């Protein structure tokens, strides 16, 4: 994985020193909250319901065990012994004291991490496929390109004050595990005539106006990728609306201009940008790419798995995915125990996952946008030992992609923007469907919950989505069906009037019962929904 060079170290150290001074001045009363707020947000420090919240960047979700242990250390020393992994592949701490923030950033810098650009109207953390470098279906590892974008976008002087925040995802497989087309820019590395290039999808997003990004360019030579991204951003920066926060995202600009006109302007700008020479020389890209070289995997490792322990076998079937190399596997660690808080992990659990990565996983971990953790490179022969350790720590719930593997934003329990609580609803659904046999009978069913219209819980992209709203001072939950953040991307449709907390759980049960009654051979929930439409489900829900 990428290691900081002298410039990375110097940039992060300078920012830590700068922010330490700003905090000192704020605590001394020398600057007001209005003056300080944009400064703290540039460093990922929010003020939430109960305390300051620090969002730490995990570039493209990739961590080593040393960094993971630092995340545990911060949880233990400065927070309340846990962290919350997010849908942006980051981690958030909910109980940070302002006076501790500089020390935390220093600790993060010591392991080549920071919280820069995890807030504000800038290019945020670049996200990617959590199985990158290990997936059997990828054409190349997308992370060197994600890292190149990270370096290009960090402190980019032209794009530090965009009309609105900006999110980029990079993948290199046909299976989309990063919700690529629901980003401001989704880049898919594709192959054409034996050459790799970047397909640019621009103008996707969730929030109050969800949109699927249209294809703007089907093949950009990778040598031109940064220039093309720069051109996309320049057109947005020039014409994106700054007068109305609700219309400021690039998706609105492209919707209003039309994809063809936006493409025309980008192409025109690209000709100019290309002349500036911002794409790196090959040697620099090769330097970055070399740091993502595959770990020294043993091609002769045994491919068999001893499945004699039935509980282990259940976990293998659900949470272990195919690795590109025989004898190896991708382990998906669910942070969704029944009745637990989606995405939360204690410092002890974080430490344990770091230990397992170090001992069995070539020192690599990934954070997923579904709020789980991945060990991307493990030998099949080590799976049983890994499972035993995870099971002892409450981390072996075998529910990946099942109905209880719920994405949920922090909701009104923590978030100052939320209108309703998300976590208790997730807990009740997971408890209602806690029987694993029942979950497996339902099959792949992605359920996603947001506590407000900002859609941090990706409710638009859930096979079943839930949106919490405030109805005259009480929590109310709208139900959506038919969304997907994967390669079959689609946006969910609201079923009708909303429900209270218990009512929405009952409604979901009626929906899943209807699915079981209607499904054809081999159909997932979302397939059945697409075949038979909303009406039968609406009838089942509302009578």
């Amino acid at each position, binding site marked *: 994985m990428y290691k900081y060079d002298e410039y990375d170290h110097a940039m992060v150290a300078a920012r830590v020193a700068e922010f330490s001074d700003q905090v000192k001045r704020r605590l001394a009363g020398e600057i007001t909250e209005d003056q300080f707020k944009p400064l703290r947000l540039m460093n990922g420090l929010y003020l939430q319901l109960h*305390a300051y919240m620090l969002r730490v960047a995990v570039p493209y979700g990739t961590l080593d065990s040393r960094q993971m242990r630092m995340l545990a250390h911060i949880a233990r020393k400065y927070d309340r012994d846990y962290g919350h992994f997010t849908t942006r592949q980051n981690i958030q701490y909910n109980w940070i004291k302002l006076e501790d923030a500089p020390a935390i950033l220093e600790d993060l810098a010591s392991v080549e991490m920071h919280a820069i650009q995890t807030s504000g109207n800038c290019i945020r953390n670049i996200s990617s496929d959590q199985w990158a470098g290990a997936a059997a279906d990828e054409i190349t590892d997308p992370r060197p390109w994600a890292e190149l974008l990270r370096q290009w976008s960090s402190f980019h002087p032209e794009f530090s004050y965009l009309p609105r925040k900006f999110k980029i995802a990079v993948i290199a497989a046909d299976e989309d595990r990063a919700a690529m087309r629901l980003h401001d820019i989704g880049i898919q590395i594709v192959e054409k005539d034996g050459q790799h290039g970047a397909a640019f999808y621009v103008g996707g997003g969730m929030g109050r106006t969800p949109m699927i990004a249209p294809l703007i360019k089907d093949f950009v030579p990778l040598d031109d990728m940064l220039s093309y991204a720069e051109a996309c951003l320049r057109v947005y920066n020039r014409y994106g609306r700054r007068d109305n926060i609700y219309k400021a995202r690039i998706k609105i600009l492209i919707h209003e201009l039309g994809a063809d006109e936006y493409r025309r302007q980008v192409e025109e700008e690209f000709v100019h940008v290309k002349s500036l020479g911002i794409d790196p020389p090959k040697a620099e890209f090769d330097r970055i790419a070399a740091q993502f070289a595959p770990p020294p995997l043993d091609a002769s490792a045994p491919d068999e798995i001893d499945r004699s322990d039935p509980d282990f076998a259940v976990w293998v079937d659900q949470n272990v995915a195919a690795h590109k190399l025989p004898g190896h596997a991708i382990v998906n660690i669910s942070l969704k125990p029944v009745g637990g808080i989606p995405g939360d992990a204690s410092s002890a659990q974080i430490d344990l996952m770091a230990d397992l990565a170090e001992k069995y996983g070539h020192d690599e971990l990934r954070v997923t946008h579904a709020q789980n953790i991945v060990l991307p490179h493990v030998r099949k022969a080590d799976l049983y030992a890994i499972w035993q350790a995870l099971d002892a720590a409450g981390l072996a719930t075998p529910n990946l992609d099942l109905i209880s593997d719920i994405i949920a934003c922090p909701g009104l329990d923590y978030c100052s923007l939320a209108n309703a609580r998300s976590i208790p609803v997730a807990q009740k659904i997971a408890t209602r469907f806690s029987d694993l046999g029942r979950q497996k009978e339902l099959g792949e069913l992605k359920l996603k919950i947001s506590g407000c219209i900002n859609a941090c819980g990706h409710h638009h992209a859930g096979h079943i989505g839930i949106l919490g709203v405030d109805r005259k001072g009480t929590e109310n939950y709208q139900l959506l069906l038919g969304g997907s953040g994967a390669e079959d991307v689609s946006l969910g449709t609201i079923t009708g009037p909303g429900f209270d907390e218990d009512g929405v759980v009952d409604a979901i049960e009626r929906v899943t019962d209807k699915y079981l009654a209607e499904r054809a051979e081999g159909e997932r929930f979302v397939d059945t929904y697409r075949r038979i439409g909303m009406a039968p489900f609406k009838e089942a829900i509302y009578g």
Partner: protein
Amino acid sequence: MKLLTGNDLKTGFVTWWTGADWSLHIEDAADVGEHGEAVLAVEEAARRVNAPYIIAGEATADGPRPAHIKDRIRALGPTVRPDLTLKPADPAAGDWVI
């Protein structure tokens, strides 16, 4: 009744105006009545509390309570982690929040 609330500058913790100072406990909150805006202006200038604001409250036998669910959750802590609330040992502490 009207209550004045904000988040403590140093810790970010939720805090309530008692009539003379700030307290972490909603039970200590004072009805600022007609004087809310004046207290708010003074306290904003003092820069001890972030973004103070006035909310509607209700007087109950157990003390003042915020009218809106968001401020009730602020007053106690996350409903999903009773161990992290201001009254972790009291299983009934959150009964009035939701």
